[in-house]
């Protein structure tokens, strides 16, 4: 075929220029692939962290802030706390210091929203075991700081949406519907290991013994509660009314619907804190976040600039090549070649260079992504605690008044919520997807097409008489 023969001969003749154009496009494309792979890797890493904070299958969580208590009554529940007495107090309460109550009717209303696949309620509680000095006195040397234990009331039943959705069962069994009113507990494996507990052991929650029926692990990155008990038992022990929860777990019908459902819930419950992957992502900090920002801002701009530079170089070199070949094109016109036919020849040449650039770009991209994966420092994400509440348990205790607000309010804040944020190591890799390769090839060919079109446009403007008279 004459077209290909001519194309091959021209490229061979102008090998150096062809290499420069292909290398320019290849470099730009390689950067795009590398940056895309980095972004993809960072997104995957973020997804892992967010997924672990969230739980697989949960798209949105809804909480409401606890109302400030005028004084603690020692009975537990929402926002409660012990009141100073003229004698030493030993307290063991199950309370929800940071999250306010949500009625079951509100959970039901959420579950009826359009695009909501499922919604269920849970109770995120803190068991506080403390010995309080008399009359707000400063703690003595023998003072024992309060012991705080995170306890979650989880919906029971196989496959129930809630805090155990993402958990992996290590031993024992899960909750069943028959456990709804039973004093049984599922432990987090970290807590169980630390306290040498196993299936069949007994743990005490709000002075009630619970038999351990299962041990679970939550995904890396989460800050799981220590103990899960049936929701109804948690409601009873926290002295809450029937059906009261403080966390609603929502699964959207599709990923695309998450934002819309979040807005609907916010409209329905104006005082609620509605958290989805977008809002949660903002709470993630650390080198993962920095890398994410680098990849999405600096990296993207770098890739765009490199691409634009490659396109510009390819276009300018093509225009220069056309200028050098004016007499040749004039001769072809004299032979009866249409301008469009000559333009196609020029565009064909740049497309061939684009294909070479794409191949080179994919190779550069793979190498770049591989080097980035190998050389990348270990990433970490700083994430908030399990329930993602602001202020943490201690702060709320202090705010609740009473003894924690006075002499030891500050220290308790620090102690009570040591994991308000925690650092999670995040494994990072920069995967190259088929989509990225297709995008790169399309960009390279697009760039070549742009460059070729400039050349072709110049050819169509060429008047044969002037072209033949040129010195070229």
């Amino acid at each position, binding site marked *: 075929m*004459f077209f290909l023969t001519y194309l091959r001969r021209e490229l061979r003749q102008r090998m150096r220029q062809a290499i420069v154009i292909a290398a320019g496009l290849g470099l730009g494309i390689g950067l795009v692939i590398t940056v895309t792979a980095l972004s993809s890797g960072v997104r995957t890493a973020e997804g892992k962290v967010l997924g672990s904070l969230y739980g697989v299958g949960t798209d949105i969580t809804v909480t409401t802030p606890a109302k400030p208590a005028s004084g603690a009554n020692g009975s537990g529940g929402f926002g409660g706390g012990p009141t100073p007495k003229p004698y030493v107090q030993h307290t063991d309460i199950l309370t929800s210091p940071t999250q306010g109550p949500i009625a079951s009717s509100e959970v039901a209303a959420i579950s009826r929203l359009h695009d909501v696949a499922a919604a269920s309620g849970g109770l995120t509680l803190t068991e506080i075991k403390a010995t309080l000095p008399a009359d707000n006195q400063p703690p003595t040397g023998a003072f024992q700081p309060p012991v705080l234990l995170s306890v979650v009331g989880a919906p029971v039943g196989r496959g129930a949406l809630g805090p155990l959705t993402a958990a992996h069962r290590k031993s024992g069994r899960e909750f069943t519907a028959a456990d709804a009113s039973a004093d049984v507990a599922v432990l987090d494996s970290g807590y169980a290991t630390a306290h040498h507990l196993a299936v069949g052991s007994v743990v005490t929650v709000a002075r009630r013994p619970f038999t351990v029926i299962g041990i679970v692990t939550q995904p890396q990155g989460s800050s799981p509660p220590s103990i899960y008990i049936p929701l109804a038992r948690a409601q009873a022990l926290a002295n809450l009314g029937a059906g009261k929860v403080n966390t609603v777990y929502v699964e959207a019908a599709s990923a695309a619907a998450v934002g819309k459902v979040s807005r609907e819930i916010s409209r329905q419950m104006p005082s609620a804190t509605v958290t989805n992957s977008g809002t949660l992502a903002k709470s993630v900090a650390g080198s993962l976040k920095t890398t994410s920002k680098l990849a999405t801002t600096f990296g993207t701009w770098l890739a765009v600039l490199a691409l634009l530079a490659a396109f510009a170089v390819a276009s300018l070199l093509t225009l220069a090549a056309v200028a050098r070949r004016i007499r*040749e094109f004039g001769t072809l016109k*004299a032979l009866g070649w249409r301008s469009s036919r000559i333009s196609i020849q020029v565009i064909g040449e740049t497309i061939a260079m684009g294909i070479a650039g794409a191949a080179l770009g994919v190779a550069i991209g793979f190498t770049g992504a591989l080097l980035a994966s190998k050389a990348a420092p270990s990433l970490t994400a700083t994430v908030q605690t399990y329930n993602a509440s602001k202020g943490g348990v201690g702060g709320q205790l202090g705010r609740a008044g009473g003894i924690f607000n006075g002499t030891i309010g500050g220290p308790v804040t620090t102690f009570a919520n040591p994991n308000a944020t925690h650092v999670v190591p995040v494994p990072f890799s920069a995967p190259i997807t088929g989509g990225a390769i297709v995008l790169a090839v399309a960009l390279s060919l697009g760039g070549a097409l742009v460059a070729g079109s400039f050349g072709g446009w110049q050819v169509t403007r060429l008047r044969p008489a002037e072209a033949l008279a040129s010195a070229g």
Partner: protein
Amino acid sequence: MSNETTSAVQNGLPPNGSDPQASAAYTLTGVTKTYQKGRRTIFALRDVNLTIPEGEWLAVQGRTGHGKTTLLQVLGGLDQPDSGSVVFGDRDLSQLRETQVTKIRATSIGFIFQTFNLVATLSAAENVEAALIPLGVTSAKRRQLVTAALDSVGLADRARHLPSELSGGQQQRVAIARALVKEPRVLLADEPTGNLDQDTRDDIIGLLEKLWRDRQLTLVLVTHDSSVARRAQRVAIMIKGQLKMADRL
């Protein structure tokens, strides 16, 4: 030139035996072409009137910059006159669209240039083949025509050579083969021997003359060389854009 040819020219008959009363290949009427050079207007062609019968060999002479090449470009449809008509056969090139003129060039007009204008990256055969591309000739037919064309200029054995591997005379032969492979009605040659030594010049002119006679071509040849011009049936002189026939000088 043979005695028969000399005799024919003297009688006003084309040496290839075509009838001088035959239909005109070209009829130019009042053709004017100007260029702007700064504030000056240069008349490349000034009210040129010319009829070229089918099968005639017309030589055009004149000093550099007096409009010879412009005349040739207007005849080939490579340039448009500012005014006047350039009737080729029965079609006025000055009134046709670019695509129509391009089609006429592809089918009916062959060009030969002083600098050969071969595509440097293509072989001799591929350069000749390039002239057949606009005609949509099949690949097999193209190969056949190219072989015949190169054979007719004595370069069948150089088909695969690049222009840089050929002498000037050989390159001009390739250019002649390229111009004639599509069997045009008209051959327009712009100083075809200008870059050649005397022996090669005679070879090329001899070849052109043979082809002109054998194929009954209309040949318009621009040349500085009076010895070349004398071999044509008629000689026209371009002076400051005006055309005068030599026998009227």
